[in-house]
């Protein structure tokens, strides 16, 4: 017997709840709007399970719905954001030496979030899925890319992170 919409949602909320919260933190800096986005993501995931036919894993399904909701949220509020969105290529070009040095996990997290907030949706999505420790095949299934293409993206993400965190040249 296939689990129903409510059962699927409750399992998913338990398993992916923390990941969904981290995801909204990456997409929305304002705490009130972030809370609203998190609720929207949960509502969308719950609604989507009505159509779930197990053609892909629950994980892929949840991440796809959540990222799509969050990307729509960013597009809707883009005018309110003062920051210009850039691509991974732009970040690869920037010089990390002039950046202020920070310390501790909190500062590192702030730096990480700052980096993600600058990225355009597809680049941010691959980076977030990489940070969630998903492998290239899983990221590819969520994004609609081949594992090979994802591996190239991950390689570039790692280079950017290395430069940002360790100040090493790419």
């Amino acid at each position, binding site marked *: 017997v296939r689990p129903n*919409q*409510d059962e699927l*949602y*409750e399992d998913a*909320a*338990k398993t992916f*709840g*923390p990941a969904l*919260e*981290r995801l909204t*933190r990456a997409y929305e800096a304002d705490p009130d709007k972030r809370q609203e986005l*998190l*609720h*929207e993501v*949960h*509502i*969308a*995931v*719950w*609604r*989507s399970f009505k159509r*779930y036919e197990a053609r*892909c894993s629950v994980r892929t*399904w949840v991440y*796809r*719905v959540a*990222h*799509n*909701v969050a*990307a*729509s949220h960013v*597009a809707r509020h883009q005018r309110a954001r003062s920051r210009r969105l850039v*691509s991974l290529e732009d970040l690869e070009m920037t010089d990390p030496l002039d950046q202020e*040095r*920070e*310390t*501790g*996990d909190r*500062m*590192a*997290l702030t*730096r*990480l979030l700052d980096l993600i907030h600058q990225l*355009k*949706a*597809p680049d941010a*999505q691959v980076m977030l899925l*990489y*940070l*969630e*420790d998903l492998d290239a095949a899983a990221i590819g*299934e*969520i*994004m*609609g*890319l081949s594992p*090979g*293409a994802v591996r190239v993206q991950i390689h570039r993400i790692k280079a950017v992170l290395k430069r940002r*965190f*360790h100040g090493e040249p790419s």
Partner: protein
Amino acid sequence: MTPDLSQANPQSIWKNQPIGQRPMTAAEVRERARRYGRRKRTEAIVGIALGVLAVAIGLVVELFVLTATMPRLIVGAAIVLVGVAIRREALQPGLNSTSAACLEFYRKALELRRRQLAISIDLWLGMAAFVALLIRPLPGIPWYFYVMLGSLLALLFAVRFRGARKASRELDAVNELLAAD
């Protein structure tokens, strides 16, 4: 003191950040979905109704009450702005719970944005024609009014054209990524 981030592991930092929410039950999320739907519907209906009412009142004032040129121009401009706001409210997309692959979803959103920006250029042309029709019979419109109107329209077109081109470029980049795959 210079902080040392050389040992920082971005993945573990990311996954170990403090999380505040407890998982919602299905009953809670169902209730939230109901409240969310009702709030969004009410906001849309109230927004559109107020806008239509404002336009109707504006038109009555414009056509039957005001006689001086400048106040009529100001009311005319206000009607146009409210019209644009109503259209924006009516086009506001609802909560999307699609499970499409993220890149394909993003490509479709960009395509829609590009198309909407192109359509909005036609809309502004229509609005300009509407303003021109309203003010044509008015006496004493200075020549610089037409210059200002023309400049404003040119600016609006430029902003929208730039937006459409930006969306187009982004779309090309996504298509390239999908094609190379």
